[in-house]
């Protein structure tokens, strides 16, 4: 049986801890060992934090709009969708829906201390994010040169979840969809 939960919260940083707190509640719904539950709820909490902050800080949320975070609890995976009121990512001068010639191409999105976040144009409506790790033998000096204050949030989402996508849908608009493979749903 699939279950869907929608959390509707004001676009206000004071609700960040509320959004984060859903991590533990949701992970409890899956049949996992205690260690797995602790690791997954920690990772999901980090992801919920970064995704919510991204929505309210970096997308033009209309005044008084509520942020509706959708949680879909499937048999062996959790899907989370965050709305995004922006125009989506601009790839080679195009916002979604992307033209045919861009489908199947990869693009550098941002750099972090240890790698790069790329987007893969899966379809006219969907961009899949993936992380390309740099050589692990970089010296501390080189790492310090690479590190910047920003950009870590999205890399945390990509690294902690199994799949992350920016999707555009004619009815739903733009949203960030993240998936985590988990044990059986209880």
């Amino acid at each position: 049986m699939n279950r869907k939960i929608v959390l509707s919260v004001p676009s206000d940083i004071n609700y960040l801890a509320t959004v984060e707190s859903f991590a533990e509640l949701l992970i409890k719904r899956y049949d996992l060992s205690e260690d797995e539950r602790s690791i997954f709820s920690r990772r999901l909490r980090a992801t919920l934090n970064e995704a919510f902050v991204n929505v309210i800080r970096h997308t033009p949320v209309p005044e008084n709009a509520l942020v509706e975070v959708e949680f879909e609890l499937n048999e062996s995976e959790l899907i989370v969708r965050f709305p995004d009121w922006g125009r989506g990512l601009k790839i080679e001068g195009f916002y979604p829906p992307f033209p045919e010639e861009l489908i199947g191409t990869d693009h550098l999105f941002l750099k972090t201390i240890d790698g790069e976040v790329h987007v893969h144009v899966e379809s006219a409506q969907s961009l899949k994010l993936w992380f390309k790790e740099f050589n692990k033998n970089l010296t501390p000096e080189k790492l310090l040169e690479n590190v910047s204050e920003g950009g870590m949030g999205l890399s945390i989402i990509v690294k902690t979840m199994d799949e992350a996508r920016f999707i555009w849908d004619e009815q739903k608009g733009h949203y960030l969809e993240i998936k985590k493979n988990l044990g059986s749903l209880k």
Partner: protein
Amino acid sequence: MNYAFEMNKDVLIARIQNKRATVEFAGKFKEDLLKQIDEKSDKVVVDLSQCEFVDSSFLGALVAGLKKTTMKGGDLKIVGLQAPVKAMFELTRLYRIFDIFDNDEEAVNSF
């Protein structure tokens, strides 16, 4: 208060006094940290022993502090990582650029 500063010998100690070190106060903390580095010392220890969770905004503030101290010939070291916070340092690979210690004394003596 979410954090407080104090001096130990010539080392500036920043103690985070909240279980969550996150975007809610990361901007103000960064501003105050950079000011304290300018005014007091470029040898800095940040005590995270009370924190159970950090986000990228707060980690960004630590990176800003590290960049500022190293630019001035000093360093910024970290103390007291609880398991979930240590996991974030590992995930973001920041553990490779910060010296991390168990307690104040070790960190202060390492300068």
